[in-house]
């Protein structure tokens, strides 16, 4: 995470003391990834929030003007969602494994799949 990136795109956890583990994991990932702020702007072009669910933990990623806010739970505003068990979701994130888990039903995708395709590079660990 370069100094430059921090200035441009902020990743904020809403109420961090009450954030679940998924949100905190995502925070680290996003903060690292958004040193490349193109990833953020491409994702933001989808113009919607995204719901991420791992096991029973949910967070909503809200892409706003200056950055991303991570909200605990389902904020009811997401135009797309991705859900799976922890390992499957980390597979998506850490290794970009999306198609196979989706086809086998381990990964559940909701809403507009094109939105998710825009988001994926941003939540993909590198």
């Amino acid at each position, binding site marked *: 995470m370069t100094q430059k990136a921090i200035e441009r795109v902020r990743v904020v956890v809403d109420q961090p003391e009450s954030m679940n*583990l998924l949100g905190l994991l995502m925070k*680290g990932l996003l903060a690292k990834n958004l040193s490349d702020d193109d990833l953020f702007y491409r994702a933001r072009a989808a113009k919607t929030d995204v719901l991420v669910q791992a096991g029973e933990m949910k967070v909503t990623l809200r892409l706003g003007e200056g950055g991303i806010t991570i909200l*605990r739970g389902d904020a009811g505003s997401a135009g797309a969602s991705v859900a799976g068990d922890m390992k499957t979701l*980390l597979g998506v994130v850490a290794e970009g494994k999306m198609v196979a888990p989706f086809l086998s039903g381990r990964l559940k995708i909701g809403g507009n799949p094109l939105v998710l395709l825009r988001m994926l590079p941003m939540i993909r660990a590198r």
Partner: protein
Amino acid sequence: MKKFLVDLLGAENVRDDPETLSKYSEDYTEHEPGKPDLVAFVENAGQVQKVVAKANELKVPLVPAVYRTNIGGLCIPAEGGVVLDMTRMDRVLEVNADDMYAVIEPGVTQQIIKDHLAKLKVPLTLGYSLAPPWTSVFANALLGGLTNRSLKYGDQSAWISGLEVVLPDGSMVRTGSWAMKGALPFGLVPFPDLSGLFVAWQGTTGIATKMAFQLWPGHPLNKRLFILTYGPRATYEAMRRLCRTETCDDIGGLSWPAGKMMMGVKRPHPVPQEGEPTFFLYVDLTAEIPEEMAVKEKILQSVLDGLAGEGERFEEPLDIMTLLKVNPAMGKFAEFPTDLDFLTDHGGGGLTWIGTYGPLSRFVETAETGTAIMVKHGFPPMIVSRPMRGGHFGVLRFISIFDKKDAAEVAKIRALNAELLLMLSDRGFVMYKTPIWAWKELSARLDPVMRDLVRRVKGLLDPNRIMNPGRMGL
């Protein structure tokens, strides 16, 4: 005493300026400060002998200290006197690669020995305590602390294979096979071994100046897995069953606040969020060949499957290297020793725990009760636990951070720790690295004949009561 010390050590190594005395009068904990009269820096065992002999003559208390990270007020003088800082005695004097031991001085830290072994390229390793790199290996062993190889090899005092100790009269003794002319320090048997007179006594019987301790074979393949679990029973039942397979090098059980704090939340809400896993099991596996690693993972999975069949919930094991890719903060658990800045550098400056050893059969209920107590006092229930000596016992530790400058919070911490100690003692858990306030509680529960024997041994060794007086009721 000061003149003697200055003559012996040089003026620059004898300090009584307010700043130094103030620094040495407290540690991370809520322990009452206690000022030394002097702080002296020694560089070799010969100096230690001379200082001890003089202190014995003048009946001046001596408090041995190294990095003072083994918290609990262990190095805070209870009755003034001289803090003998041995941090500069930090040499690895020998590594015997054939017979798998090292001889070290008190100031050897986890990082120093790790770097030293790496430089020598010997295929040997040791365990590391969940403490910063600058923690003294020597002190942790002498205090009966633990490491991430304590499951296999016991608490770190069990790795001591010989001690060199300056007795309160200034004489020097060697223990274990080392006491025998020409013998290597390979172990504490088969002699009448008096190492026990110096281990876990908190410096009240002598000052150890050299330690031979066992190193262990490294294996070419290593894996650290994290398993998110839902609740103490899933966690501790898995821990116990895994112990029985004898295939794991380490099994840690951490409650969710540990993870959240590692990921930057200063003070997580005491109650976990809906649906989130409440414990992490982390498991170290090592192997000589890939097939061995595969077999161990298979056995691990079958233990988890068995428990899942009984209704316990687990997420699938996650490789730490995967987690690390996702969130760099997980790197704090990728390799030991690790910098625990999220515990030590949180602004408030206070860090404390009630750490106990006890039977694994009582972990579930005790963790639940301890959690309730911490929540009641408004602290996130951070639990760190681990089976030791093959699962014959384990450590159960309740950790809190707090603001040392906030008197009300310090009072809350004291009340919390007192309640935790009582609860744990009632369940047969025994506190280690015991602060003075806690010793009073423990002492009341101690077999009176043993208590008397401890006093008599203290009287035999240290009739002038110069060695860290006031600790452990001695």
